[in-house]
């Protein structure tokens, strides 16, 4: 009889443990999904800001049509990217196109002191930081989720209920940015 009770207690403890672990994994999975959505929100904001910026500077930067077009192209490519790896590389291209544009803006004193341009520049800088931080947060929470799935004995539950590890962002090297070509000769 005593043995039966001990067995029963053990089974109950096991069941409770499985429930607790399962719930913890579900919570983490939702946090990962939420983290991913946060990145999307910031990316969308960035994509929305860029046409504004281009329209503001277009009038004065008519000699830099190529750069402006590159920014727009990079923006459109990034907006239609599919999957984590693709999006990451296209966003990087957009970042480098933008930094080139901002470097060129430095050559236009009227633009450099234009309030709209300054505002847009601040918004874009902030949005870029937000994207970086949102990815950082996503990576942290996704790593936590992955670890929770892989450690023993929780990995049994993870495989039983078909939890899949989340993909992480690769850390990209910011130094790859193209050096802007500064042309001071007067083109006619």
């Amino acid at each position, binding site marked *: 009889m005593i043995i039966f009770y001990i067995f029963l207690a053990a089974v109950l403890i096991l069941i409770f443990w499985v429930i607790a672990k399962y719930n913890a994994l579900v919570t983490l999975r939702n946090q990962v999904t939420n983290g991913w959505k946060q990145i999307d929100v910031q990316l969308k904001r960035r994509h929305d800001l860029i046409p504004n910026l281009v329209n503001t500077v277009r009038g004065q930067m008519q000699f830099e049509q190529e750069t402006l077009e590159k920014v727009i192209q990079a923006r459109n490519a990034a907006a239609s990217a599919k999957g984590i790896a693709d999006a990451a590389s296209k966003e990087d291209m957009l970042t480098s196109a933008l930094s080139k544009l901002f470097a060129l803006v430095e050559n236009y004193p009227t633009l450099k002191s234009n309030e709209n341009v300054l505002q847009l520049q601040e918004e874009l800088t902030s949005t870029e930081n937000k994207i970086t*931080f949102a990815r950082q947060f996503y990576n942290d929470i996704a790593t936590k989720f992955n670890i929770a799935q892989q450690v023993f004995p929780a990995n049994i539950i993870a495989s039983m209920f078909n939890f899949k590890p989340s993909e992480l962002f690769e850390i990209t090297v910011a130094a790859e940015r193209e050096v802007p070509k500064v042309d001071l000769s007067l083109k006619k």
Partner: protein
Amino acid sequence: MAAVRNIYEQQAYNKRMTTVLVILYIAVAVLVGYTVDVLVLGFPASNPLPILSLATLMLACGTTIWSLSSGWIAVLKATGAVPANPRDPLHKKLLNIVEEVKIAAGLPMPRVYVIHDCDFNALATGNDPRHCAVAVTDSLLEGADRDELQGVVAHEMSHIKNYDIRLMTIIASLVGAIVLMGDSITKSLKTSIESATSDGSSTTTSAQAQIISWVVYGPLYVLIWFFTTIVAPLPLKIMAMAVSRNREYLADAAAAELTRNPAALAQVLKKVGTDRIPTFSMTRAAAHLCIVDPSGNGFNDMGGFLAELFGTHPPILKRIKRLEAMAYSASRSPQPPPQPAHT
């Protein structure tokens, strides 16, 4: 000095400490009330109801509830902080930076305030991550670059994340409340002495009564004054400051983890640390809420026993050194450590 804790231990410690403090505070208040009940109002013998004990109990509970619910707003208002205005480009920058750090920390957006002051300082206050505020002086807003401001905001957001703010805010408002309570008790005693002395009809009895009342009430008055204004707040203050220093290191480290840029925070601490102008808008009560000691007297940096006991912040040079060590190891970590040449 408290042992080094990680963020989760610090959070648990802060929550525990808040409970301990509240219980201690209510106990002290009731004790003060009870002492007066027994000694002055003749509680068990001539007076069946411990009126003052009940009154102080209610008062203590009331101030605690007030401290926990809106104390942080009072602390903030006392500094003359105004909400950041999104139309002002500088304020907009601050709002953007807070939003960035909020994303990194995975916290809800706090309220953002700007304090008009010529000193470099910043503070965080509130109850929990949903009800809190970050405030920065406008001089810091102008004098620090984007990365430095991000470091400062990350430091403050770490205080929010660790629940440091609730403990520190409650200490700030409870210390204030105890002093206030002591004042009101001594004042009421004073009036009771005065009324006792003015009661007498003839001048001789009045003079006698005055002497008697001073002999009886005088020492009691001094005792209560001594207890409520010096003894009771002292342990609270020492505790506040002892826990405050450890959490500054922890908040610096957490800020570095959030922004991955300890060098910027070290740099801004250098800027802040070199100016010794007091932050006029910060009262003593708000001192441990700030990023650096607002008194500007360099007390925390003197070192030694007294600074260890009463300082609100660790010496700024020590903080900078720790942050620079982090920056150094972070900049080296991508490469493998240099191998000794075996030739």
